[in-house]
């Protein structure tokens, strides 16, 4: 079994949610808020919300889409916002631009609906990330499999989802290490193809385990 030159060092992240004082009471306000809020707020309501709602697999994509559906009752706009896939973005600026464009296009075509009061306001928040090493590391594929099984939900999300923006690559920490430290390109690709929108953390973790065990059995 190949030993890596650098071990995979597992980290966990905990988030301190900050209330930003910005809020939207209608779709027009959402459009303005999307332009004015911090990058951390865009991250919080898109990338981080997937981690916070890791147990949902059907139709939950980001906080903006959910609010548009539940509080504004605009399923067509909600669907467009929900269809943005965070894996396509390497920067929050690009993601913000697309969110803002979609909302403004909708508002421009339907000014009456844009100014209609929502059932409840949307509160813009952001989060401070506190990352702490778990004291867990993997030097080979077997140790990697065993360690992934011991990860908390937050740790799994940190390495598998939030890592994309940290790496500025269309990949995750696990795949990055598998290809760069163990030379397992196919396995890395298979892991990266696990759909974070239609899997829970637990089902994604189980799929990684199955893939790694297949590789170990070869």
């Amino acid at each position, binding site marked *: 079994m190949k030993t890596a030159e650098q071990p995979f060092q597992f980290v966990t992240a905990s988030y301190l949610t900050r209330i930003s004082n910005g809020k939207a009471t209608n779709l027009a306000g959402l459009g303005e808020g999307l332009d004015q809020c911090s990058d951390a707020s865009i991250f919080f309501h898109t990338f981080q919300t997937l981690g916070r709602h890791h147990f949902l697999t*059907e139709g*939950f994509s980001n906080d903006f889409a959910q609010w548009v559906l539940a509080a504004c009752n605009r399923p067509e706009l909600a669907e467009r916002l929900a269809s943005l896939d965070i894996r396509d973005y390497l920067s929050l600026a690009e993601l913000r631009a697309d969110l803002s464009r979609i909302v403004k296009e909708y508002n421009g075509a339907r000014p009456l609906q844009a100014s209609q009061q929502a*059932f409840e306001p949307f509160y813009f928040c952001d989060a401070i990330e506190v990352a702490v090493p778990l004291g867990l590391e993997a030097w080979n594929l077997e140790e990697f499999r065993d360690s992934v099984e011991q990860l*908390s939900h937050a740790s799994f999300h940190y390495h598998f989802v939030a890592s994309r923006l940290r790496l500025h690559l269309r990949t995750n920490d696990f795949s990055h290490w598998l290809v760069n430290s163990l030379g397992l390109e196919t396995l890395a690709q298979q892991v990266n193809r696990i759909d974070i929108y239609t899997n829970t953390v637990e089902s994604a973790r189980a799929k990684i385990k199955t893939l790694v065990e297949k590789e170990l059995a070869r």
Partner: protein
Amino acid sequence: MSTTIPLPRLIQLDDYIPVLGKPEVAELRALTSRLQGRTVQMVNSTAVGGGVAEILNRLVPILQELGVAIRWDVITGGNDFFEITKAFHNALHGGPYDMPPESFDIFLAYNEQNQARLQMEAELTVIHDPQPVGLIKARRDRSGHWIWRCHIDLSQPNPTVWQFLEPWVNRYDGAIFSSPEFSRQLSIPQYLFYPCIDPLSEKNRDLEPEFVREVLDRFQIDPGRPILTQISRFDRLKDPVGVVRAYQLVKRYFDCQLVLAGGGASDDPEGEAVLAEVREVAQNDPDIHILNLPPWSATEINALQRGSTIVIQKSLREGFGLTVTEALWKRKPVVASAVGGIPTQVIHKHTGLLAHSVEGTAYQIRFLLSNPAIAARLADQGHEHVREHFLITSNAKRYLTLFLHLAGIA
């Protein structure tokens, strides 16, 4: 001959492993590894009774077991002080403030007395609610970190009281609120900490199905037919009359029962009046069970929630709505009003269903009764949502994260 009564075993962190899983408990330990020996002090105004004391009674031992050098102090005061703080409490919820102007001086004098009595030297100090807010004067220099934890909804405070408190609050390094909706525009950072429940408490721990059945029998509730339940005080803001009307709409199509269980009707004249209104609208329907329970009924409430088919919370105004949290934890499908902290918990069509009217509530109940598989999925996801966000252990994690951030360790 004397007999020795065994002391009940104190709940320990490892007792949460069956609820949370080993990795989540290990994560709490990892987060605390850099806080070993750091001193933390919590201060509030009561050791027993009320939600804050209930939380601190569990939170402090958990943080202690994790290795944080934490102490919990309770301020003291005369009846005059607590009359003023009760008036503050009501006024901060938007009510009038009728106390004389010198009440503010009395309030500050008691804070000074407590400041002289208490040792306030921790690296991280958390002051809970307005009663001890003036203790910030004890801060000697900028070396320690002081946080104000507000458990009250400040969205529409009485201006007289808020104008008095705001300068004190702004002297802290940050404030914690239970919902963005409850916060104010402040010059200091504001953090979001959800209220929480303890899954091992009497009100939330697992119960044997036989016991649940026994409690239903005791109240003459038929376990063989759907049971709709709202647990809340008999208070107009909880809209029990609206719940009965929604039930009556559902009853046209489903042979169901309604349980309205709560307290507050024996020691509160308004509660008695509300109870009378509910009885009138219920029109002696034998399938409506109105249970005015005493305050020591935690296990019975637990059983009633567990025995329910659907839990309702049709409030007109709500704080965070911990009865919703309790129901979700027990894997019950929930239909609730989109007010206060409820939409944070009931993510529409994911962890429950939201409604905005009597008719809407009835429709959502009928939908769930007709679609038990969907109801079960919402209930399971609701349980996971609580596990992730609204348990005492999540609260401990938030405090650890705050301490790490303030101490600049991570």
